[in-house]
């Protein structure tokens, strides 16, 4: 009865294992291929712009002269966003993790996550229709009273559509990212350390300074960098809110431009060398955000062993 019973394999079944595992492997490799493909296709389509004679590129000075003011503009907007968002995000995360009544905590977290669910184009529309109008009197005041600072140099924009406004909208968009990551980290602080601080007679703030913040520092850094990556790549908040122009130091005048907004505004109507130029700009943006994200991931994996959460 048994000479063949163990070796008689269910043919279809065994092949099924190979087919299925092959499909899973193929899917994984597809992801790597897609990423490689993104880089490759962008480079290929961008080369005409990178190698074209200087006068063919917009501005007549060659690609580098075209792109570097826009890169600076991108960085300015992102820095404004982070400077505004980071302290508020950390405060909100601390509020939810350590200050709010326990029953409310998850509900409050959900409310902050609502900020993340709103599409970016709606933020752009809000920035253009509401925030810009409301804030332009403040710009007038800044130009009048602090105009000696280059960043507040007048005359202030009357529409309010400046890079500072765009930066504020970006801050609102980046806030939920930094908040939710920081909140996770704060909640993971070992209770042992917190209780040790409290047992020494520390006030709540002192306990946070002693036990929570040092533990959370790498996580906060990583969260900020992820927020930076998002702010660098965000299109709609800038395209709808910023009245673009040449690079200017003043934050309260119209002018400046970011890469993403430049592409969005010009690509639909573009043709020929202009298309290549914009794709090259996209490549520059891709490289910048890639670097920022990789550093952020590296920071958090490096510090996982030292997190003390074990």
């Amino acid at each position, binding site marked *: 009865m*048994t000479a063949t*019973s*163990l*070796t008689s*394999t269910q043919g279809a*079944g*065994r092949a099924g294992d190979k087919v299925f595992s092959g499909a899973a492997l193929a899917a994984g490799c597809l992801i790597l291929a897609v990423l490689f493909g993104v880089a490759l296709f962008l480079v290929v389509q961008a080369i005409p712009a990178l190698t074209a004679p200087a006068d063919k590129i917009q501005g007549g000075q060659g690609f580098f002269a075209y792109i570097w003011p826009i890169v600076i503009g991108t960085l300015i907007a992102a820095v404004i966003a982070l400077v505004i968002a980071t302290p508020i995000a950390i405060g909100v995360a601390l509020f939810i993790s350590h200050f709010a009544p326990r029953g409310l905590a998850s509900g409050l977290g959900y409310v902050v996550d609502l900020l993340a669910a709103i599409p970016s184009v709606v933020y752009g529309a809000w920035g253009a229709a509401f925030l810009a109008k409301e804030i332009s009197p403040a710009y007038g005041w800044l130009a009048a009273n602090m105009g000696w600072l280059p960043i507040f140099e007048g005359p202030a924009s009357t529409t309010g559509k400046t890079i500072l406004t765009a930066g504020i909208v970006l801050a609102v968009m980046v806030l939920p990212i930094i908040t939710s990551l920081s909140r996770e980290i704060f909640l993971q602080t070992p209770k042992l350390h917190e209780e040790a601080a409290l047992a020494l007679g520390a006030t709540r703030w002192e306990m946070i300074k002693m036990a929570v913040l040092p533990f959370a520092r790498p996580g906060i850094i990583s969260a900020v960098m992820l927020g930076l990556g998002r702010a660098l790549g965000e299109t709609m908040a800038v395209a709808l809110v910023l009245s673009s122009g040449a690079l200017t130091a003043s934050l309260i005048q119209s002018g400046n431009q970011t890469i993403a907004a430049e592409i969005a505004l010009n690509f639909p109507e573009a043709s020929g060398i202009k298309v290549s130029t914009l794709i090259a700009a996209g490549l520059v943006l891709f490289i910048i955000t890639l670097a920022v994200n990789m550093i952020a991931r590296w920071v958090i994996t490096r510090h996982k062993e030292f997190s003390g959460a074990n």
Partner: protein
Amino acid sequence: MSKRIDVKDLNVYYGDFLAVEDVSINIEAKSVTAFIGPSGCGKSTFLRTLNRMHEVIPGARVEGEVLLDGDNLYGPGVDPVTVRSQIGMVFQRPNPFPTMSIRDNVLAGVKLNNKKISKGEADVLVERSLKGANLWNEVKDRLEKPGSGLSGGQQQRLCIARAIAVEPQVILMDEPCSALDPISTLAIEDLINELKDQYTVVIVTHNMQQAARVSDKTAFFNIAGTGKPGKLIEYGDTHTIFSNPVQKATEDYVSGRFG
């Protein structure tokens, strides 16, 4: 419907580490054999090689032979999946499939393999398996309810019914009662006594009284120290092992001097 198992010179490796060394043992058909020994002595590891379950862990391999009525489980061209449909296993913690009803859990071995079986045949199989596991009377009115809604002891009997439904030759049990209360344990031990009329049963247990109650023959495994391989020290009739063992180590263990 049950076969004997003959193991010849079996060595079990995890990568380069030798976990169990040189085991030879003959297990009679339609009998209950117990493996006893202190924690970490390799008895569960060895049990898993009897239905090639150790291969689920990457890097695990064996050298030697395990013969099921003369067929080598590790022979060339032998599919582990076929082996496991002939040698079933019940685990330490009851693990009914949470997305399936009681009825579907019992039929899982059949349904998951897409074997076609009519509703009438399925009903007969469910009833037979649940009766064989002494669970029929308790669940016959709620076969469509989820399997995870039963008590621990009932869940374990459900897992036994599930194993029986595949109609194996051998049933391996890896400490089946250690997660259960004493009443459920007793129910399972009674069940094992009935199962041996039809199946060859091998049970790993760290409860020596259970081994004494339940098994015909007992094998004692021991380990010389951490990092050293486990070995089979003595194998014989249960009565002899517990009252008159040959090896001193066996006597020390069953009289409670260590382990």
